[in-house]
């Protein structure tokens, strides 16, 4: 089934839906609304052909059934060969459950309390750096370095101050992997891979033991055996890669809403905002646009028959705007009677980093709003969103007054 016509008039929207298309961001949510209304399980010819699943209940069906919709054949559509991650994100139960049992504790809210002071310190340092100028570009000057520092400290065990340049370079390289999955992405992966291998070797030979992710991967077991080197390195690079753009995207998106509505800046000054408001921001920002799966057995989704071997793209960012679940879905509404958003996915692959993301986002705005007020968009600046799997504002240049 093809959908003729397009909100901007250019025809065959869904058959040509390609998440990497640089023209897509401008009409991304319009296209998804069209899909939900007219063809909730649509077939795109792009990226080797796949089913685009856009309705909440259908996305839920896909993500709740890891036997029919597996991850081990890849979760990124159109991925270049050699981009397999050897990580838990591309593993299926029961092995996937063993990885989660090994790692969930280290990403729990309780465990992360111990890293909160370090995150605050990095955030405060970054804010100190740009307050005097009265302006900054939120993505490049704040969200980017903050998430890079936190992830590389927490996951790689690197010291931020001494490794700043290398970490920032790695973070920039990672951004390439979301944008087009081509040559640049392959190289970026190679850089991170090499770094992770070196760090693992260093930890092993140091004989040091810490209660952290590297240790858990080196000393832990899955399926009754130690992790392979590829699995250790694959998971390390996944956590850094997956945690960077995504958290950065939410910080940037919230900044955009904040500059569009000064009442939001006031709302963010209330510490309680992270308990309710943040989830409304997450629902709308939904930076992980979707995740891929491969069908293992013929199945009906949203009235369409999918065949074993078919690729599926479960659009979480579309599920989060499903009119059947969320009234006035494109509007910010902090008082929704229900907000079961799937910005962190759902099912067994629920984002393992969700608590870390929440923590960073909360600290980021607390540190910022302690020091500044009256945050506005730089006059003349326009907000544009990135193409790619992770959708984020490209640049958010703001001005403010010191408090």
């Amino acid at each position, binding site marked *: 089934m093809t959908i003729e016509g397009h909100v901007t008039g250019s025809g065959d929207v869904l058959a040509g839906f390609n998440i990497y298309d640089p023209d897509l961001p401008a009409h991304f949510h319009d296209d998804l609304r069209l899909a939900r209304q007219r063809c909730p399980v649509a077939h795109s010819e792009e990226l080797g052909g796949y089913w685009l699943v856009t309705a909440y209940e259908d996305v*839920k069906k896909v993500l709740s059934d890891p036997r029919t919709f597996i991850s081990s054949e890849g979760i990124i559509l159109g991925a270049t060969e050699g981009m397999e991650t050897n990580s838990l994100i591309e593993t299926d139960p029961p092995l996937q459950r063993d990885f989660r*049992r090994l790692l*969930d*504790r280290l*990403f*729990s*809210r*309780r*465990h992360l309390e111990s890293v909160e002071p370090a995150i605050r310190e990095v955030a405060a340092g970054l804010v100190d750096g740009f307050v005097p100028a009265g302006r900054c570009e939120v993505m490049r000057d704040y969200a980017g370095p903050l998430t890079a520092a936190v992830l590389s400290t927490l996951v790689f065990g690197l010291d931020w101050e001494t490794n700043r340049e290398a970490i920032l370079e790695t973070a920039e390289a990672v951004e390439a992997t979301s944008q087009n999955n081509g040559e640049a992405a392959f190289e970026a992966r190679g850089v991170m891979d090499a770094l992770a291998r070196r760090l693992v070797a260093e930890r092993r030979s140091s004989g040091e033991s810490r209660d952290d992710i590297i240790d858990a991967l080196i000393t832990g077991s899955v399926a009754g055996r130690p992790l392979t080197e590829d699995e250790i390195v694959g998971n390390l690079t996944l956590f850094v890669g997956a945690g960077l753009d995504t958290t950065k995207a939410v910080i940037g998106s919230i900044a955009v809403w904040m500059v569009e509505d000064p009442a939001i800046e006031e709302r963010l000054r209330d510490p309680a905002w*992270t*308990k*309710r408001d943040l*989830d409304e921001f997450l629902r709308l920002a939904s930076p992980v646009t979707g995740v891929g799966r491969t069908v293992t057995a013929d199945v009906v989704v949203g009235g369409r028959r999918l065949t074993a071997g078919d690729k599926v793209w479960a659009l979480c960012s579309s599920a989060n705007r499903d009119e059947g679940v969320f009234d006035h879905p494109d509007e910010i509404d902090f008082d929704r*009677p*229900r*907000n*079961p*958003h*799937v910005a*962190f996915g*759902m*099912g*067994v692959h*629920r984002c393992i980093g*969700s*608590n870390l993301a929440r923590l960073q986002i909360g600290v980021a705005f607390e540190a910022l709003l302690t020091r500044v007020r009256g945050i506005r968009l730089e006059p003349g600046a326009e907000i544009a969103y990135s193409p790619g799997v992770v959708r984020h504002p490209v640049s958010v240049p703001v001005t403010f007054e010191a408090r």
Partner: protein
Amino acid sequence: MRVVIDGDLCQGHGRCALVCPEVFDLDDEGHGVVVAESISDEMAPDVRQAIADCPERAISESEPSMASMDERE
């Protein structure tokens, strides 16, 4: 009112503990735990919010509140 979390469905989103920490906590793995024996009518709206906000639909009422039982009669 009493609620129960289905441990097989819970995936550790942690929404319940955010919305209603008096009733829900998270264990070391980040999975939901009910920490209140019974829930007052005052807490009921927040608990219902937690139930509605769980993306896994892992929380259910095992015993409806006295108020809602009256409505049924």
